[in-house]
């Protein structure tokens, strides 16, 4: 789940809540889902130190992302 997909889902949920005549159970289920998406998206924003990595390709074609140290 990425920040982008969370934000998109949140927008979709908001527009359903706004535009559709939903029964209460559906509306509350959507709200709960929205809260979960909000939590996930907030978690993405807690990172305070940027990370610098390097892409390394092994001989077998598998990729590894390693810390890049100066």
């Amino acid at each position, binding site marked *: 789940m990425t*920040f982008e997909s969370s934000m998109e889902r949140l927008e979709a949920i908001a527009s359903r809540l706004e535009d559709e005549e939903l029964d209460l159970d559906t509306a509350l289920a959507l709200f709960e889902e929205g809260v979960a998406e909000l939590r996930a998206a907030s978690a993405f924003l807690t990172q305070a130190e940027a990370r610098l990595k390097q892409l390394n390709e092994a001989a077998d074609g598998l990729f590894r992302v390693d810390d890049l140290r100066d």
Partner: protein
Amino acid sequence: MTARRRGGPPSPSLGALELFAAEPPPARAESRPASRAARAVPPPPPRNAQNGGDVAEAPRRAVYVEEAVPGATPGSAVSVMALTATARDVLEGAFMPLWVRGEVSDFKAHRNGHWYFSLRGEDAQLKCVAWSRERRRIPAPPDDGMQIVALGRLTVYPARGEMQLSVTRMEAEGDGLWRKALELTRARLQADGLLDPARKRMLPRYPRRVAVITSRDGAALRDIFAVVQRRCPSVEVVLVPAAVQGDSAPESLCFALDQVARWGDADLVIIGRGGGAREDLWAFNDERVARALATCPVPTISAVGHEIDMSICDLVADLRAPTPSAAAEAAVPVQSELRERLRMSAATLSALASERVARARTSAADLARDIARGAVRRVERRRLELESSAARLHALSPLATLDRGYAIVRTDDGGTVRSVASLRAGAQVEVVLRDGTAAATVERVVPNEQLTAPGNTAEATA
């Protein structure tokens, strides 16, 4: 004797004949078939290794005897082949590769990939050739009439007996060749539709991971990382190292793009480098790199050099950034803005949910009121029913009779007195009237002869 000294042009006063006499083919001759030169020309005299070719310091003894010099007499005539080969060796030995200025004429690109042309001066011309495998650094073929400077080795083409310049680099006035090369590449990409603005993709609004194709040690990576750290440290920067200048750069950049495609875990790719000389930036004008960039499955930002440098990659990428820092600015959002957006999103969601709940509550209240109203109506109906029943009941009740002025006489055991026969004088009775009762004692009992006769009643005194 400075012609072969490194770092300087050949001395203009130096004639080929002097060279021929004073300094036979130098070390280069060793790489040629030795027999060819050796047949016609005596081996070079031993040279003082320390002093190189500096005749002033170490004058050579003139040891040639006239008869021994090839071509000095009819008897020692040399072959054309031997002479031209020797002339070539002498010329090649005499001149460092050097830049020559002139106007291009008779340019021909041969099927075999080599270019042939002449460089013209006022009253002179010089045949030139650019071998296909030696002209990697020449951006584009020159046009006839172009003023250029060409770097080449002066040599002799024995089959034609012509002196020619074997050209490895070339520059035209006003960047003509570079512009031409760009235009040629651009035209080919355009023909394939790769420059169509409709191809440009939207960049992801919130990338998690940005791949950066550049040199590991360049300023570009540092600049990009610094911007990401400042704007949005949640975004991960992944270097995909590549050579960004030199002959291997195009291939290296293509490989890095291919790696990003196969890896498939980047949301966005920035390809670029910091500013530099035009030649240093040239890999980003390479057609192969441009095509690899165009087919990259991940949205791309190009960031080559400084503000003014425009590269082919810039035309192909989904977004062109003037510098690597600007590319990073375009790539990642500002974290505080994201927080704000998230906060607003949370507020919207919560408002919508509250509103929905409030609506539900209202309709529940409406329902309850309806139910209550219904109940009241039912109770009222029952009350009215009850009232009418009561009225009916009342009409039939003996109490109604009392209203009309009748009385009921009850004995003290509660029984209703229906006949004087049940009374005798002195009996205690109760007389029930409309609005109360009275206790009475029977004084005398007078039975009626006839039920209908008036006065045939029991008299009682209250």
